[in-house]
């Protein structure tokens, strides 16, 4: 229904989404993000009009099976390629900020 209202996005919800998305937003960006999300969700709410009770969620458009292969190592070391674009590296490792305090 065109006049159905979605719950407005709270500061808390936006904060939660930013944590999930690993994004840091400025105050202006937060305002814009709230508006954008509210508008998008209001638009998406049209889907509520559909009676989907009789149908299963469809992830793959046509029948497909999982693909297996023998558990045999086929790749070589490849560490040079893997480290090719490393922002920071040390020997055969990527360097990142300390994770264990």
């Amino acid at each position, binding site marked *: 229904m065109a006049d159905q209202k979605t719950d407005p996005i709270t500061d808390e919800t936006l904060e939660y989404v930013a944590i999930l998305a690993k*994004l840091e937003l400025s105050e202006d960006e937060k305002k814009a993000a709230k508006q954008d999300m509210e508008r998008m*969700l209001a638009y*998406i709410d*049209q889907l509520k009009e559909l009676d989907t009770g009789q*149908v299963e969620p469809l992830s793959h*458009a046509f029948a497909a099976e999982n693909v297996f292969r023998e558990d045999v190592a086929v790749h070589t070391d490849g560490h040079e390629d893997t480290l090719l674009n490393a922002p920071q590296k040390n020997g055969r490792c990527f360097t990142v900020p*300390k994770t264990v305090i």
Partner: protein
Amino acid sequence: MDLTGFSAIALAKKIQAKEISVEEAVRDTLAQIEKKEPDIHSFITVDAKGALAQAREVQKKIDAGSLTGALAGVPIAVKDNLCTKGLLTTCGSKMLSDFVPAYTAEAVQRLKHAGMVVVGKTNMDEFAMGSTTETSYYGPTKNPWNLAHVPGGSSGGSCAAVAAGQCVCALGSDTGGSIRQPSAFCGVTGIKPTYGTVSRYGLVAYGSSLDQVAPVAKDVSDCAALLEVLAAHDPKDSTCVKRDDTDFTSALVRDVKGMKIGIPRDYFADGLDAQVKESVLHAADVLRDLGAEVSEFDLSLVKYAVPAYYVIACAEASSNLERFDGVKYGWRAKQYEGLHDMYKKTRSEAFGAEVKRRIMLGSFVLSSGYYDAYYLKALRTKALIKQAFDKAFASFDLILCPAAPYTAPKIGESLKDPIQMYLGDIYTVAVNLAGLPGISLPVGVDAAGLPIGMQLIGDCFQEKKLIRAAFTYEQESAFMRCPYAGGKAERSGGK
């Protein structure tokens, strides 16, 4: 020699006949690119050195008789979300502005194996998220039919390059219409195959259940030839399907007698530009006059396709783009305190606004408490949409409709209202949701001289029906050449 007017197949024939060398073809392409780039900006990277080296290698093999395929020696431009070993691959983003892959995408590898020469990487909406190529970190691409207008997106660079006569053919990708819509806006032909037909190995993922690599060229014959080279089973992509019917050029036949073509009434309602409607329905008449049985029907669920698509695409994108965290490749922020801060700053600094918008929406719809109401709801809607298409294809061989509800908008207009922009995808997204093949080909221009594209949609694995109908229509119509391209027009005659 001006090679601008040739199709890819015609160019390959001249190369096999030794009328031109591969190096000449590549040099001419590079010259056209250089000449037209200041106007069009369809390329992010041009690899002149690499292309000429490839050309020499390919010429040797052609001379030795070991490369005899229909496209050997032909230059091609590749959308910048396909990995090319040793060649910058940016996805139109700051995040990958210095990323040089250590491997080549399977689709590109297959083209190279067939003797095609990669001349450069084309501009695109950032991470394929957009419909105008305006979200690219590297600036917009212009539509060669009118430089004040967008080429469409997200494969805008690829389609503009072909339309402008910079390169005879190109590779793009299609997740929600990203090859079909810009093909329509640029007056060229683009085809999205059935999901699983072309390997996605090395295609930077946006919506993994929707993405397909897709060729764009000047005509149906070239598209069929390209698709034939691209289509192959690849064990490195577990969603790739084993097919034994990929001899697509065998479908280049002028015959639509008895073909049942359905026109969805609900696609021709409000919001469709009158000139687009007229052109597309006229094209349907042409097919009817040639013996096809054309009739109207109700597809249903039309208005739910766009919201369902955006939930699913954004959800998948939010997951796929988690890998861009500054650790292993791409941008890393310079100042941060601790690992999580590095992640946040890196991503916030290097992703554009549209990408952030979609990642946030995607994260939200997948989060606890909302997953059922949004994500699963969208997947159930997808099931209903698939059922609607199954019902349609029980009665019809093909569905005929516009590729887009309007012609190319002016640059700067679309990003003001994202939802308005998303609505422009109304004819293309359902095709990706249902995994179907779709082709877009030019059927005319509007009063402002901007191209109009018709879309033909087939059932899963029915590319040959699409190609046959599209080819038949095309051979009956005047060749649409972009005035900007220059050169003399020539088109392949097929069978």
